[in-house]
């Protein structure tokens, strides 16, 4: 137990900070948050800068074109880029955090060579076509069908809540290759395919979120032909591949955001001192409590990173809960809630200005509502914690 960073880690941090100080002023002005094509251009330009400086795919294995950095270096990277006000991974999220690592782990040599470099360079953007109108929390009940026709799959069905679909080049798509029956339980018979978004038969209809942007979409698939060579993993083995994908979704995905929340909290305190709201002890105390929460969430992240670095043998949890992977769901449950509380407090600090959408806190307040839903709802996360970590009996 020693929270100090090593000399090597501090050297890494120093070089990164130096580069950020030079690189960020060269960025074009940030696009309007509602303009997705503008956001894609901005996010991929940032990715290109990272690539050229050798920071692309920091946590990817070296043989997949990444830098093979340690989890702690990755943590430092996320911390410093957020501190410096650098862009988020944004439109590159699925490619860099889901599809890329999945292909690196499960793809063939040809597939890795075809798909990984463009992700790292920021040339190609991916989206995630998992959820369907009838398959959200119960993802395994998905029904989009793929029928083999020679060396192609012919795919029909629909997907929903597909983030960045409007601007993506590729989609990691889950399809059913074997109908559910007594012999084929729903978790089997699923296959993981890479689909070109400009393939004939793909229709994207952007959906407007409650925050006003079209960050996700509905997707209609009408006899879309996908080469069999674009299948990752074996036919009907997609559920296992999906679990590989989802395991990347947890981990350090929210690190930069925790740093951002702590910064926002400081701004809240300054604003409250300026506009007199600080005199309200109840509000002041709420901000103090949030300070403790976000500090602890940051520590929890450091712990999760430490454990992943050590090969996953947990040392926490005196009561025998020290299992690897404990961190992800625990973290997400508390973080998603705390983020919503932060922006509730922001509204109280702003008073009447809380109704003015021009203030970025109010946009963030709206966006925060998705955190307890996206990437597995809080109810589903609680089931996971109860069943997989605490060992309580399954629901069914």
């Amino acid at each position, binding site marked *: *137990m*020693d*929270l*100090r960073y*090593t000399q090597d*880690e501090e050297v890494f941090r120093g070089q990164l900070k130096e580069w950020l100080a030079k690189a960020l002023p060269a960025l074009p002005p940030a696009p309007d948050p509602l303009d997705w094509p503008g956001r894609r251009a901005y996010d991929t330009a940032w990715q290109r800068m990272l690539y050229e400086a050798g920071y692309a795919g920091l946590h990817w294995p070296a043989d997949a074109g990444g830098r093979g950095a340690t989890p*702690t270096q990755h*943590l430092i990277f996320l911390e410093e880029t957020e501190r410096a006000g650098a862009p988020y991974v944004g439109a590159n999220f699925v490619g860099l955090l889901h599809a890329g690592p999945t292909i690196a782990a499960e793809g063939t040599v040809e597939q890795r060579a075809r798909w990984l470099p463009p992700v790292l360079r920021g040339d190609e953007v991916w989206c995630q076509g998992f959820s369907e109108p009838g398959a959200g929390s119960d993802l395994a009940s998905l029904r989009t069908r793929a029928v083999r026709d020679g060396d192609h799959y012919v795919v029909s069905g629909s997907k929903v809540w597909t983030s960045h679909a409007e601007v993506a080049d590729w989609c990691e798509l889950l399809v059913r290759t074997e109908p559910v029956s007594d012999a084929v339980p729903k978790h089997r018979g699923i296959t993981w395919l890479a689909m070109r978004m400009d393939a004939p038969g793909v229709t994207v209809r952007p959906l407007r979120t409650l925050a006003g942007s079209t960050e996700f979409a509905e997707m209609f698939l009408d006899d879309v032909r996908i080469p069999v060579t674009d299948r990752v993993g074996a036919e009907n083995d997609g559920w296992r591949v999906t679990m590989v994908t989802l395991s990347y979704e947890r981990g350090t995905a929210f690190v930069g955001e925790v740093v951002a929340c702590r910064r926002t*909290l*400081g701004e*809240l*305190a300054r604003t409250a001192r300026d506009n007199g709201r600080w005199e309200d*002890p109840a509000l*002041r*105390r*709420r*901000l*103090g*409590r949030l*300070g*403790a*929460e976000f*500090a*602890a*969430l940051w*520590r*929890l992240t*450091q*712990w999760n*990173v*430490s*454990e992943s*670095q*050590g090969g996953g043998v947990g*040392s*926490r*949890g*005196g*009561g*025998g*809960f020290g299992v690897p992977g*404990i*961190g992800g769901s*625990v973290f997400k*449950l*508390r973080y998603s809630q705390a983020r919503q509380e932060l922006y509730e407090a922001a509204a109280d600090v702003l008073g009447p200005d809380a109704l003015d959408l021009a203030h970025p806190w109010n946009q963030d307040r709206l966006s925060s509502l998705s955190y307890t839903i996206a990437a597995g709802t809080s*109810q589903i*996360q*609680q*089931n996971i*914690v*109860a*069943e997989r*970590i*605490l*060992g*309580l*009996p*399954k*629901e069914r």
Partner: protein
Amino acid sequence: MEFRLTDDQLALRTGFRALLDGRFGREALRAAVERPAIDRALWRELGDAGLFSLRLPEADGGVGLGLPEAVLVFEEAGRALLPGPLVATHLAAGTVPGADTGRTVVAASDGALVEWLAEADEVVGEAGDARPVRSVDPLTPLHRVTGGPEHPGRSAAAVLTAALQLGSAARTTELAVQYAKEREQFGRPIGAFQAVKHLCAGMLVRTELARAAVYAAAVTSEGRWGGADTDAAGAKLLADDAAVRNARDCLQVHGGMGFTWESDVHLHLKRAWVRAGQWITGAEAEELIAAAL
């Protein structure tokens, strides 16, 4: 950066858990509840095992370890609901003769409360006007005091008390989970019902967040890094929360059984309430952290 426990730290924790299991198991706890008193022989054994001298330099007869190790040991004491002025005696090691070996029982005033005053051999701080109260915790006699100088070890006391709360929070989570696996209703273990499951998951989340805060505060307070006081306050705040709310949820999972004197749940809840009132209260912690924002 390495947050995981070292092998030595893991061994220390295992050793203390074994000691407390053998020496202060459930029967001893229940017997103590019926006849609250400090078990002087146990106090000396704890002293011999290094509970009080843990952070005293080896040259002074101590174990020479730090606050992170002390936190692990206090967490075990919290799990076992070990009674007595543990924090006060630990802090007095090296200044009050005999505190380090457990030959002297030391109580301390935090400016509002003193526990185990009548049984202590020494008192640190102002306790001249101490007035006995009927303590809510059957195993923690309490006196109220007014004011007095601030205890020099307030920050460390808060972190160690937070560690006791953390141990209790982890223990009530285990008790709830264990009960939920065994107790059957409607033909199934109650742990199969989502309402119960979600209570248990919430308990684990609170415990883990508090654990991260407490362990980190132990490390930063030890090194006197910046923000040590707010780290200690944050750790106390989240650990108080975890201990109190987990005990309540544990009681709920136990149903009518949880409301009886026979079950241990109420002992965890009452002790958690007492500790939440010690050293730094929730309101004080929130104000302290807010002031630093």
